């Protein structure tokens, strides 16, 4: 099944002094998120940014892919604590994404967990979509 997910942003003014707001998304789960260029390129000051939203997307997608891979290998995870850190270099773009996971997975050894995490990192749809990011790293640990 194909799924479409939509997000709407309203922007007022120019880039440097203007601001925007993430207004509506398909699910209604998030909205009213303020964004601005200074918050994106300097101190966030309580505002989210495209990079932070990508980080949320990537950590979520990676967690889903890893949970699936582990379950298929007979090691359903109790808990996967995942994070993605997206590095933005103004003028250059998104230069790096660092994935990290700490897993509570009964009966798996560190090598097998590392392998499953590598698989998820390579194959989750968001990783695939972001394949042209110059650097994608992974730190996988068992709790």
């Amino acid at each position, binding site marked *: 099944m194909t799924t479409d997910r*939509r*997000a709407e942003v309203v*922007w007022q003014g120019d880039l440097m002094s203007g601001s925007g707001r993430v207004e509506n998304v398909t699910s209604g789960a998030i909205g009213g998120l303020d964004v601005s260029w200074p918050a994106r390129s300097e101190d966030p000051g309580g505002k989210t940014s495209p990079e932070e939203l990508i980080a949320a997307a990537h950590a979520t997608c990676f967690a889903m892919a890893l949970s699936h891979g582990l379950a298929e290998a007979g090691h359903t995870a109790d808990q996967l604590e995942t994070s993605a850190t997206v590095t933005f270099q103004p003028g250059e*773009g*998104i230069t790096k994404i660092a994935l990290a996971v700490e897993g509570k997975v009964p009966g798996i050894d560190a090598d097998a967990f590392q392998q499953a995490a590598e698989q998820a990192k390579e*194959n989750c*749809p968001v990783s695939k979509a*972001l394949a042209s990011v110059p650097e994608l790293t992974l730190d996988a640990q068992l709790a």
Partner: protein
Amino acid sequence: MSLAGELAQAGQAAAHVEVTATVTLDEVEGGSHRIVASTLLARARVQDMDKAEFERFAHAADEGCPFSALIKATGTVTVTTELEGGADDD
């Protein structure tokens, strides 16, 4: 942000811009899933600008947007535009 930057450079700092992105996830060969497309719609109120000009800005913004560049490596990005109260409103 990229579009706001393009418009500001053209002296259109007071623009009101609404952008929606629809991201499509599809099942591909082998049963795996892939983000295959991002469809952008840019609607704006800009002083003294006709539709063709706004469309050029929207495409320039897409060219300069880091995220568009990433998606384009493996999927498609399409941009459509709508102008409210533009110079060609009739």
